[in-house]
């Protein structure tokens, strides 16, 4: 159960190798009351170091379970199983996703479809399964790592952007469906995040770091927010961007 300050006791991360998620979990454990952490990852047997790191900052019950975004049958069964154990999970973070390379996608449409399946379809099945578990326990939050890339598709990453647009719309609707259930959905829309996923890329303006995104997630959970932008002013930038005439948008988004 969360306490009066919103501190989280237990968290399930789907996409446990995500840098943002790992920083978030480390902060929750170190500064909050989080004692139980479950990392859903493709290869749980390779997580010993990550587990040791989370235990080092203070968690007492850390484990890794197999999670493959492209295998909905298996991951829905895994999520149902975790909730069926009878121990509550206060927060589920959907942190998995691939950025990919737009040029590669354009020459390999099958790879593009696979990225879209990971980012969108995988989140649909995992998100619905997690929401079902949270709804049954009568409390909890689902954190969905979206992106400003989904706000308006750019020529340079529209496969990724469109998958995030789908994910974001899904998360909004899922949040609406959970009204009155004691469960809420927090949508996180970061801009360009300096991380291993974006290593070697030119940063966009108003770029941020996993550390800042983690703080925004924790603050958003404590205040039960619906959407957080990181950094915050991106909200106003994109409310303008969304309405730019197409020729102008093409020029602006190509330069950025």
């Amino acid at each position, binding site marked *: *159960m969360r*306490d*009066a*300050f919103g*501190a989280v*006791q237990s968290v399930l991360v789907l996409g446990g190798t995500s840098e943002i998620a790992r920083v978030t979990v480390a902060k929750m454990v170190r500064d909050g009351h989080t*004692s139980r952490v479950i990392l859903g990852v493709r290869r749980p047997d390779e997580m010993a170091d990550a587990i040791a790191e989370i235990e080092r900052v203070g968690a007492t019950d850390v484990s890794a379970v197999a999670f493959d975004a492209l295998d909905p049958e298996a991951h829905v069964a895994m999520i149902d199983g975790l909730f069926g154990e009878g121990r509550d999970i206060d927060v589920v973070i959907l942190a998995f996703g691939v950025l990919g390379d737009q040029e590669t996608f354009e020459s390999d449409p099958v790879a593009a479809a696979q990225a879209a399946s990971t980012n969108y379809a995988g989140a649909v099945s995992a998100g619905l399964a997690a929401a079902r578990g949270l709804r049954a326990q*009568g*409390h909890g939050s689902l954190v969905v790592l979206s992106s400003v890339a989904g706000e308006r598709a750019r020529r340079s990453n529209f496969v990724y952007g469109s998958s995030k647009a789908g994910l974001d719309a899904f998360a909004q609707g899922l949040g609406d469906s959970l009204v009155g259930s*004691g469960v809420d959905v927090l949508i996180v829309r970061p801009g360009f995040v300096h991380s291993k996923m974006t290593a070697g890329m030119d940063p966009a303006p108003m770029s941020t770091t996993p550390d800042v995104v983690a703080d925004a997630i924790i603050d958003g959970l404590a205040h039960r927010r619906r959407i957080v932008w990181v950094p915050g002013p991106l909200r106003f930038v994109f409310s303008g961007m969304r309405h730019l005439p197409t020729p102008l948008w093409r020029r602006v988004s190509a330069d950025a």
Partner: protein
Amino acid sequence: MTGPTITGWGRTPVSTGRLTQPTSVEQVAEALAGASSRGVIARGLGRSYGDPAQNAGGTVLDMTAMQGITAFDPESGVVTALAGTSLGDLMRWLIPEGWFVPVTPGTRHVTVGGAIANDIHGKNHHSAGSWGRHVTAMTLVTPANGIVTVAPDSDPDLFWATIGGIGLTGIIVDATFRMHRISTSTILADTDKTPDAQSVMDLMTTGDADYEYSVAWIDLSSTGSKLGRSVLDRGRFAEVDELDGDARHDPLAYDARELLKVPITAPRGLLNPLTVRAFNEAWFRKAPKRHHRRNLTIPAYFHPLDMLGNWNRGYGPAGLLQWQIIVPFGAEETMHRVISELAATQVASVVNVLKRFGPANPGFLSFPREGWTLSVDLAADVTRAGPVLDRLDRWVIEAGGRHYLAKDSRMRPETFAAGYPRLDEFRAVRDRVDPEHVLRNDLARRLEMV
């Protein structure tokens, strides 16, 4: 599931459960038999600050429809009341007959069931103990044994696990307890203002035995030479010949009215260090330096906050929390450190009290024991209070103290376990009467009690 959102009086932690209102013992038994894996808990008037009377994803039994007195002996003052009966109703019905509740907390809006489940205490703990001491029998519906009547000599383990057991040993459906004989409904109150915490503790140590009731308000927002200044209020019920001429005609008059309700939730930040300091300053100045033999009514003396309905809304949208701890005699140094730290960090708000407790009862999870208790209220949006309270928790536990479950909404499971060394005995009783752990609440989940 979808259901009503349920919170405690602090309006924080929130969860959703299925709320039903049983009107008979049979319906209570049916609710236990038909429970889902998320379980069942009883709820009274919802005055616990945190999460003991809510049950996320499960069933919450609103017991307030099961109310009323089923037996009363006007000679001995022994009364049997259904669990949903409020202390306010008991007062309304029995004060005119010359009987007062044996123990009352700072609000009369608590039920008999809640009084047992939290083993409530009041200003008379040093002279009368907590609620459990006055209970002679109670009827519980337990998952394993159905309807059982429990008394201190019939099944002492179950009886004392239920006193303070936050509803986890069975649904309480009625209780028999002794009321307190009074000749008038007037309190003769003595007020003494002291410049610091040590002086007020000295006054309580030397003088509490002369009073039925005693509690000190303490300023936790002033530092330096004003650190720990207090206003000690002590009193006892007056005899008829001590009343003014007019009052003698109706010595047991009782009129408890709510003057007004807080209509809306206050804006964020209404209570900030500046307004809190101003309030505390005004409160301290308003009190006379020494004023003895003041005549006060029961509502004015015991339940001043009840005059303001929904006063918890005054703390803004984030809600409030309370932190109430006890340290045993001999650990006064810890109490002084706690008081200085609270003043230095400016996290406390306005309703802060210090009291000297008398001996404990055998309740496994009963909070009061001999020592000093401090109760502090805070606005929940003061998130910087979290680390401060974590630090104070460690001092309290190191001093052999503990936290009051009816107030808690944030301590850690290990803090709770360290403060209640008889937790395993409690668990053993619970496993006997509820082997499948049907009785559950959010507090038990948060503190890993079961």
